[in-house]
């Protein structure tokens, strides 16, 4: 079955758009095999931006998506959710980072930056052509926590978890809990006692 | 053990007691000190302020000659000479650019096979049992404050054989000689060195602080390992008393003098009778 890739290139306001010729990136990359829809928009991560993706998936019957924007550390989870909303497997997705890895570091070489952005987008398109749906598996959770260390940190963690109704095991190697804090006299800045 | 031996400029002058006691003790311990032929000034302390290259080249020439003698180690009693040699050794073995330049200047090649040990380290690393076997007149009851000065153990990246803040090599030797080496806090303070000649006003304050420390520690005498330290603490004691109104009468010994005494070597050979500050009163304590 032929692949139907949708490409969305983001301006990130002037972060990308101020350096890279964004419409040209979309236009050039749209020649890549399998790309059936390519466009650009000011902020892909915004609500209208995400709606654009959902609408395009439905109208153009897209089966996979590339977004060229910022680092995947920031918005990969965002766009995966967008795909899921549109009924696609969220892993039929790839990002091209044309901000941190392109516009921000090549702001004084606009022409070359645009060429590099096109290359980065082609890389993402090549990858997305090969992706397959992935499925999360599920593991059970033992509803009990272990806290190692019975000083102020360990006691506070244990109390907060226990107050939520979960069981906690608090392990301390010394004969008493309290740690360093129990050794202290009054504590700053309020000079109240530490016990 | 054979050492290439660098006497330095004070060995036959202000520090001749150090030289004679060193020779006597070395003989007892079977250490052969082979004087480097045609040795030259080590460069202390003028060269390093003048030219980095000169500062390395002066001691390096001696190192090259000594290496040519086929020996593994060089030793010298003077802390300033030792510092110069140790520094040159480090520069010549770690910095190829300097090594090539200096070897060209001195017209010889120093390969870095000959290592540098201070006399304190050389004697301090002799088997303690061997030293003990030569102790015939232990210095029982003598309380000493071992004073190392500033150049013998610092900076540690150049010297490195003893703790820079609380050195113990001489203390341990004094214990072997039967004396009590006291813990005190001024082991590595500055004695004023050449300021004793050029700006006595500063030197007397520094000397005063050290001598006060010795007295506070309860020691009967100071033990040193440097002719300059000896000069300042021994000779300039008088100047301190005069300028600051103190009345120090603190005997100052080279560590080799006391080791030699404990080995039964006579006082004249060790040079114990040519000090500026009286030595006889305290030595009567140990017979």
């Amino acid at each position, binding site marked *: 079955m032929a692949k139907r890739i949708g490409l969305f290139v983001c301006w990130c306001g002037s972060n990308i758009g101020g350096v890279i010729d964004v419409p040209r990136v979309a236009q050039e990359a749209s020649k890549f095999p399998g790309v059936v829809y390519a466009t650009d928009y000011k902020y892909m991560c915004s609500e209208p931006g995400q709606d654009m993706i959902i609408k395009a998936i439905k109208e153009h019957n897209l089966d996979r998506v590339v977004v060229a924007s910022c680092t995947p550390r920031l918005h990969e989870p965002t766009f995966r959710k967008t795909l899921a909303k549109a009924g696609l497997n969220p*892993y039929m997705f790839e990002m091209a980072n044309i901000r941190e890895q392109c516009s921000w570091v090549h702001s004084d070489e606009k022409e070359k930056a645009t060429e590099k952005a096109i290359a980065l987008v*082609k*890389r993402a398109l*090549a*990858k997305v052509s*090969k*992706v397959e749906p*992935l*499925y999360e*598996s*599920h*593991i059970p*959770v*033992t509803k*009990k*926590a*272990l*806290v*190692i*260390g*019975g*000083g102020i*940190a*360990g*006691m*506070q*963690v244990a*109390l*907060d*978890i*226990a107050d*939520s109704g*979960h*069981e*906690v*095991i*608090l*392990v*301390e*190697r*010394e*004969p*008493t*809990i*309290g740690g*360093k804090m129990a*050794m*202290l*006299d*009054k*504590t*700053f*800045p309020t000079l109240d006692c530490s*016990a | 053990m054979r050492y290439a031996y660098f006497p330095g400029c004070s060995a036959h002058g202000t520090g001749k007691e150090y030289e004679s006691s060193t020779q006597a003790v070395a003989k007892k311990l079977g250490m052969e000190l082979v004087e480097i032929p045609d040795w030259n000034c080590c460069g202390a302390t003028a060269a390093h302020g003048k030219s980095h290259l000169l500062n390395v080249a002066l001691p390096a020439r001696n190192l090259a000659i000594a290496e040519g003698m086929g020996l593994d180690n060089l030793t010298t009693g003077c802390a300033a000479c030792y510092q110069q040699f140790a520094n040159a050794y480090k520069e010549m073995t770690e910095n190829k650019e300097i090594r090539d330049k200096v070897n060209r200047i001195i017209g010889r090649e120093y390969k870095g096979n000959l290592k540098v040990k201070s006399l304190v380290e050389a004697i301090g690393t002799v088997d303690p049992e061997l030293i003990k076997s030569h102790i015939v007149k232990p210095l029982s009851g003598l309380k000493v404050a071992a004073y190392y000065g500033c150049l013998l153990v610092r900076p540690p990246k150049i010297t490195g054989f003893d*703790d*820079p*803040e609380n050195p113990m090599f001489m203390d341990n030797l004094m214990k072997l000689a039967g004396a009590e080496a006291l813990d005190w*806090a001024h082991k590595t303070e500055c004695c004023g060195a050449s300021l004793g000649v050029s700006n006595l006003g500063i030197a007397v304050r520094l000397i005063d602080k050290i001598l006060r*420390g010795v007295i*506070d520690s309860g020691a009967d005498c100071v033990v040193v390992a440097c002719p300059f330290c000896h000069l300042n603490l021994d000779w300039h004691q008088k100047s301190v008393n005069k300028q600051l109104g103190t009345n120090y009468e603190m005997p100052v010994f080279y560590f080799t003098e006391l080791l030699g005494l404990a080995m039964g070597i006579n006082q004249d050979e060790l040079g114990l009778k040519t000090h500026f500050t009286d030595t006889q009163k305290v030595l009567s304590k140990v017979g």
Partner: protein
Amino acid sequence: MVAAAQHPKIKLMTYCEIVDVSGYIGNFEVTIKQKARYVDHSKCTGCGTCFEKCPSKVPSSYDFGLGTRKAIYIDFPTAVPNKPVIDAENCRYFKTGKCGICKKICPTGAVDYEQKEELIQEKVGAIVLATGFDLFEWEKAYGEYGYGRYKDVISGLHFERMSNASGLTGGKIIRPSDGKEPKSVVFIKCVGSRDEAKGKEYCSRACCMYTAKHAHQVLDKIPGSSAYVFYMDVRTPGKAYDEFYRRTVEEGVQYIRGRVSKIYPSGDKLIVMGTDTLLGRPVEVEADLVVLATAMVPSKDSDKIAQLVGCPTDKDGFFQEAHPKLRPVETMTAGLFLAGACQGPKDIPDTVSQASGAAAKVVALLSHDELATDPMISQINEALCSGCLVCKGVCPYKAIEEKTITERVHGKPVERVVASVNTGLCQGCGNCTVACRSGAANLKGFTNDQLLAEVDALCR
């Protein structure tokens, strides 16, 4: 402390050590060693008769040798649990076989010399590391401060034990050497902190404030006393912190910007030599007591815990958080969280905040009955796998297991070993795919095929 001990949902296990951890997020299996206390805490009422009568006295390490404790002891009067343990190393019965006084006089028969250590297995869904800090051993590094030879040069924590009203001096600040009240106290900050030559590069963060507190306490508790603080910088960026510091300055604590180069005894005083870098002059202060603000370092044996639970440490040995800004209480191992100074030096307000943060993460995790796992993990193509298990050695998450499969070769069943990925443990790092010589290991979402296609596209 009491709140933690009395909470019905908290099982308190003191005098215990973790000896083994296996499993993965949601399903950890932990082995805990209960060290022998030689006192049955289910019978002990904490009446204290035993440690009143015990004849073996030991210098109290809890109180920096300020006083003594017995061989059967509690560390301090409000200890939790308030029941003693026997220090077998110093107990007369364990050393000589004679004595047995505590056993004879215990009204409930709780003393049990035969008690053995015990291994306890527990299953948990999440683990929080809160192993705290220890003090930098300044005695090994700072010869200029006497290498610990001068009794009246002490650490800040030692000072706390004296100024603490429930400590052995009852809150009285004294000189350890002669028990006299000091009139002149010098504080030195950054001992081991911010000192690349002798200690650590980092700032220990709490010292500026506790030194200000200590200096205040000296002036407050000792009439006619003076307090001096040698500092490099004063760093007081917490809420109400700078106000506190300003107050101590206004109270008369003398702050001197500069390092101390030497401390030496003179009579029964200590002479503190340093430089006032604002005046550009050397200074000497006569002190009765010197208090060092020593660096915080990871607690002893935290490296062993790190190995047991598989948590990376940073260059200084503190546990490494997953992200310095965005994931400060999580680690790279799913289900393993951090709280307090084990992650880096911290004061109490920061520790409590981080602890509550870690608790929120744990509660979020435990609120699920099931967890979805990241599908971008490794998979093994069993047909290609040669069973060499090189991948097992390079896996930092212990996620590769051996598996025996049965194949038909020439019509006969043959058993052989292949690698298998534990989907709960695999974090998708890709180490195994690089190490695998037969190309059997592949990372889902980053397959060799996909990566090659990307390279092709870039090179074209």
